[in-house]
């Protein structure tokens, strides 16, 4: 990491973290290289692929084009923060069951986009899922298994109230 020029505070996955970073760093760089949270991926570094998607105050956000200053003091959830100590988030489990992660590189970003969708809609249609994931490129799956996994997770979350 180049020399740090500022210290920002992030509420990451429930923890309050202070991290010193160069001023030009993005949120993705701060997470990956400053905090060692390597779950969020960099596929393009310019806002085109969605692999770096995290939740910032609940909203899916491309962390590779989010200047670190903009994230200061915000609530960030990354893929590492979706599950709990007791087990994975239903989305994470259903992705595994449905083979929705082939190489898995798009998966962290897709999970964050899907989690935001399920937080606002408990029974999304296929069309809503497609729209919610339209900023996340997956090169392996053809998306079909991803839709199935999101639908199964939604059903499970409805059943569990």
């Amino acid at each position: 990491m180049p020399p740090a020029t500022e210290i920002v505070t992030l509420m990451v996955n429930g923890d309050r973290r202070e991290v010193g970073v160069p001023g030009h760093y993005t949120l993705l760089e701060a997470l990956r290289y400053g905090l060692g949270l390597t779950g969020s991926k960099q596929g393009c570094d310019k806002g085109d692929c969605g692999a770096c998607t995290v939740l910032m105050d609940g909203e899916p956000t491309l962390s590779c084009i989010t200047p670190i200053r903009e994230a200061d003091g915000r609530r960030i959830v990354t893929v590492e923060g979706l599950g709990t100590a007791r087990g994975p988030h239903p989305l994470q489990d259903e992705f595994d069951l449905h083979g929705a992660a082939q190489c898995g590189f798009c998966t962290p970003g897709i999970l964050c986009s899907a989690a935001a969708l399920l937080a606002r809609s408990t029974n999304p249609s296929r069309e809503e899922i497609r729209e919610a994931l339209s900023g996340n490129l997956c090169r392996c799956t053809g998306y079909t298994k991803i839709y199935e996994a999101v639908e199964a997770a939604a059903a499970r979350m409805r059943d569990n109230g």
Partner: protein
Amino acid sequence: MAKSQSDFHFIGKPQRKIEGLEKSSGRALYADDIRLPGMLHGKILRSPYPHARIVSIDTSAAEALEGVHGVVTGRDMPTTYGIIPWTPDEYPLALDRVRYVGDGVAAVAAVDEDTAIRALDLIRVEYEELPAFPDPVSALRADGSTPYVHDAEKEGRNGNVTKHVHMEFGDVDGLMETSEVVVEGEYFFEGTTHTPIEPHCAIGLWQPDGSRRDGLGEPTRDERGDGTGADSGPRTGSGKLTVWSATQVPHYLHRELARVLDVDPARVRVIQPLVGGAFGGKSEPFDLEFCVAKLAMKTGRPVKILYTREEVFYAHRGRHPFHMRYRTGCDTGGRLKSVDAEIVLDGGAYASFGLVTTYYSGQLLCAPYAMPAYRFDSTRVYTNKPACGPKRGHGSVQPRFAFEVQMDKLAERVGLDPVDMRRINFIGENTRTVNELRITSNGFLECLDAVERASGWRDKFRKLPFGRGVGVAGSTYISGTNYPIYPNRMPQSAVQMQIDRSGRVAVFSGASEIGQGCDSVVAYVAAEELGVPLEHVRVYRGDTDFTPVDLGAYSSRVTFMLGNAAIQAARKLRQMVQQAVAEEWDVKPGEVLLAGGRAMWAPDTERQMSTREAFNLAEAKFGTLGARGWYDTPKDVHGDYRGGTIGASPAYSFTAHVAEVEVDVETGFVDVKKIWVAHDCGRALNPVLVEGQMEGSAYMGFAEALMEEQVFKDTDHGRAGLHDGPSLLDYRIPTSMDTPELESLIIESIDPEGPYGAKEAGEGPLHPSIPAIANAIYDAVGVRMDRLPFSPPAVWREIQAARGAGTLRKPPC
């Protein structure tokens, strides 16, 4: 005898992938997730010219920059390499000539990326520009008055020709002459690239030896007197080199690192972390792997290089643009008589896999249809653009597009339904193709039946309203190649398996997990054969220090070869366990079943013990338990002619697609509504993974049909040789909104040689997408799309032409 499905516990059933939760929880580690203590960051300086001589390179200012620990240029690694042993034509960094915009010329290692980027700006390279060959036409016309892309091997030859293959089987001209119907067509397949979401990344680590007690080190290059050791850093032989890389061929990387860097292969270790997609785009060594290794050796610190997305586009090795001309003749009943093809492959600046691509452009066309006579003439040429190589369906996707459109045109001429046209030409099973490839299991007819039924073909073909249409296409693909890339008589794939008193199975597998699920496949085999739950199987992988050699994830070889190797190892262990338990119970070993975590006596399954207890008995009887399994391909099965080994595979998969489209005649926009994919993969070891491969393949074919173009600027627009749009925004790959509905229909023709009867599923299902869509566009509006991609402007132009000619209408029944 083939087992029926109910005989299996794991095989053939939906299962989790063993690393699935790692991936969905964000714990999975990819190359760029790895950080080593003291690690430096590297960057590569790239040529701004498509073709130029390097007059001089001055790195002194870069070296003097604070934070820079090392700089290397082509002089540091003056050895050529190439994935095909006969065509080594690349240097890790250009030595005296650059051949495409993006060719690497120098690399630096610095404390951080920012410093490395600043250092690149300080490197002074003086170039002397050379005339470039932007396309195959100019490359083929070259007369030597300006330097070829590569110097000609022999005086008087055109150095721009990488490879020329001419093959003829049967009486092509005679049968063409007597064909009642002959269709001739010209086709163009635009280049496309793999675009894995993970960019290439590598880390090098050099661990020097301590001094030897006898005071004698291994000789340096200078001591050996080869005169190249001037500034080659520490003694190359006296340490251990480790390279982590997002590669799909760790074994070939291992070989080439050792050869090019002159390090004993026994001192080289390649570690393959999980790979974030590859599709053929990571199947040979790249400049970054040599650079991290050399920089690590030079600086004594670990060095990482991560490609930018732009660099991934320039690294390329994707689908070759093909210019194709086909003549196809059949009788009045639609039976194929003669096929004649002429192909020019635009290879880019280096050979890559090009020699194989040139053969594949013709060799893989001879099924699933019988053709009595076939000729192809293929020429691969060098051009001053990033090198093309293997992309999913290597070399055979392009001709398949042309050929399946030809089939459609023939069907129309003889008045046959195109599905029936394909049926009557079916080559059959247990047969030989006209070019002598051995076909064993073949479920192509079932594939046709399945897509015809599922798509409602009979009610749609030529019956949908104008603007809407359906198209069909078929294809075949290899399950690995009988002959490895470098000639040798060693196994193509192998595993080591251990069981112990804890009840766990450990598998050491050298196969390359690139998302397709091969680590899981060995785990399913181990669980199936040894009767343990999947959670008791650990797969240790991707490290050339402790896994046996597997040749890599390419040519759809992995499940077939690795699966067979794993079955062999697991069965050796199973026999030992059965024997030990049988002795304990005083029964016959064959009567001991292992399943569901239990060992049972078949005649009375009440008599049982846990597999852990059974493993204890075996360990007590035989000592520490381990077994090896390996697979090698049949070596006596190939065509009896020069080149006849290329395309020879232990088994072939078969695919049929139906695509349904809607064409907007005002805008030229083609909306693919749905693709039905039927694929004969032999036994589907895990149907979820097979479907994933089928859907991913059909998606990728759809993308090439409608959206993707890997193109470079010519002299008229800005700088020649620059990529037209090296980003994931400009190079358009389908989002969830673009991708059509995909329906997978698995067909299982149990293969005699496949593991439990399995064949490939990773590449075959891509092929028919493109021609099926082309044929559907024709059914919709009567317009033939013989050039890719079917982008709105291209389709619109054809529609305008048809309008002018009065042919814009539903084609006649």
